[in-house]
């Protein structure tokens, strides 16, 4: 039985703002809004001789609590393009998944591999439309027919195309590491170590970042290596003692076994539930 609404036009879909007046009213009365899960985070990207490396930590926080000790912040966009996301976790996930679907449809339509500039343009137009309310700060990296590209995309929709970028709450620590160690056209092991060091600087010096370092290397041949975890920087401690008592600690003095007599009063067979 359908519920009927007294509206004169069916709304289109997308975001609705029906509850905003109610929420404002409630907040005036003293209600505290629930906190969103953020990936207050360290995400970095770097172009090296053989392609592009993206690095990220793996902690997701809800205000001051660690919500997820090992979350994955490097999202798939296209076979040759990956994107790290900082900010509200739901926003980064949904945005990257939507753009990824759109790019797949575009690939079906045109028959050509995706370019990183296309992904960048789609993301920036989407984020600008929502004026920063979709809180997603992204590091987009990939390799296409024109070479390796790296973009940083801010929540309000501005983008920068740079050889090395960092975003998130740990971005200052990571950028300091990059500024000290970056050289153009680095070799692969050197580049992986520098990205690992940058993310580790964020992990150890920023409260919003922690746990492990994930790396994603997109090579010039468009081969992707997703190393998760690349480096377990924070091992969880091993318990040193066991407080359980060994069986036999308490001496048994006597044992009495009494069987409980019961009669079967009735038997019924239950038919299978109709779950249609």
């Amino acid at each position: 039985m359908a519920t009927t609404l007294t509206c004169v036009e069916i709304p289109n879909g997308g975001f609705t703002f029906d509850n905003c007046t109610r929420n404002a009213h409630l907040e005036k009365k003293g209600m505290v809004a629930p906190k969103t899960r953020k990936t207050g985070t360290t995400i970095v990207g770097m172009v090296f001789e053989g392609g592009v490396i993206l690095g990220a930590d793996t902690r997701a926080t809800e205000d001051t609590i660690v919500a997820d000790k090992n979350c994955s912040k490097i999202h798939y966009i296209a076979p040759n393009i990956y994107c790290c996301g900082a900010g509200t976790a739901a926003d980064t996930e949904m945005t990257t998944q939507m753009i990824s679907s759109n790019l797949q449809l575009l690939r079906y339509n045109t028959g050509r591999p995706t370019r990183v500039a296309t992904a960048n343009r789609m993301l920036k137009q989407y984020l600008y439309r929502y004026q920063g309310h979709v809180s997603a700060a992204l590091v987009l990296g990939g390799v296409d027919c024109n070479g390796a590209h790296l973009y940083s995309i801010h929540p309000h929709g501005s983008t920068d195309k740079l050889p090395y970028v960092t975003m998130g709450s740990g971005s200052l620590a990571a950028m300091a590491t990059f500024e000290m160690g970056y050289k153009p056209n680095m070799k692969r092991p050197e580049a992986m170590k520098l990205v690992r060091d940058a993310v580790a600087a964020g992990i150890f010096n920023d409260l919003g970042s922690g746990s492990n370092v994930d790396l994603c290397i997109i090579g010039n041949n468009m081969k992707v290596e997703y190393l998760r975890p690349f480096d377990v920087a924070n091992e969880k401690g091993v318990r040193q003692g066991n407080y359980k008592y060994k069986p036999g600690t308490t001496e048994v003095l006597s044992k009495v076994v009494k069987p409980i007599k019961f009669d079967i009063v009735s038997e019924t067979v239950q038919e299978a539930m109709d779950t249609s």
Partner: protein
Amino acid sequence: MIRGDKFETKQFSTEADTEYGVTSSLRSGLGNVRSNFVSSHPLEKSEREYDDKMKQMNFNMLRNSQGIHAPLRKQMELTAINKATTRLPFLPTSNLSQDILNGNDACISIQDNFSHEDSEIMGDPHLMMEHKLGLKPL
């Protein structure tokens, strides 16, 4: 804290609910006049107008690059489809032809994430037909 004067005013359609220009409390309930003019969220106005504005922008660009005939033809196709294939407003439609003409058949947008496709709500047929035909209550 959301304060009304920070946000632009909503622009509801200039036709009032009823014939004599007052809001009908039977239809829209008792409400304050302020909520008609003050939006609760800065994005409300821009989201409501987004599709129309994008279409305008695209038509303008078409007109500038290809001449007046290009948007005219597109507009003609859209009008023809609207006349031929739209159902009554309260009936469920897939809007397939309109989607193809607007280029949305190869796109996934936020409207597909939060869509009313599978919702179990329908609009009241009488109200919707009256709105479509421009009949207003007294």
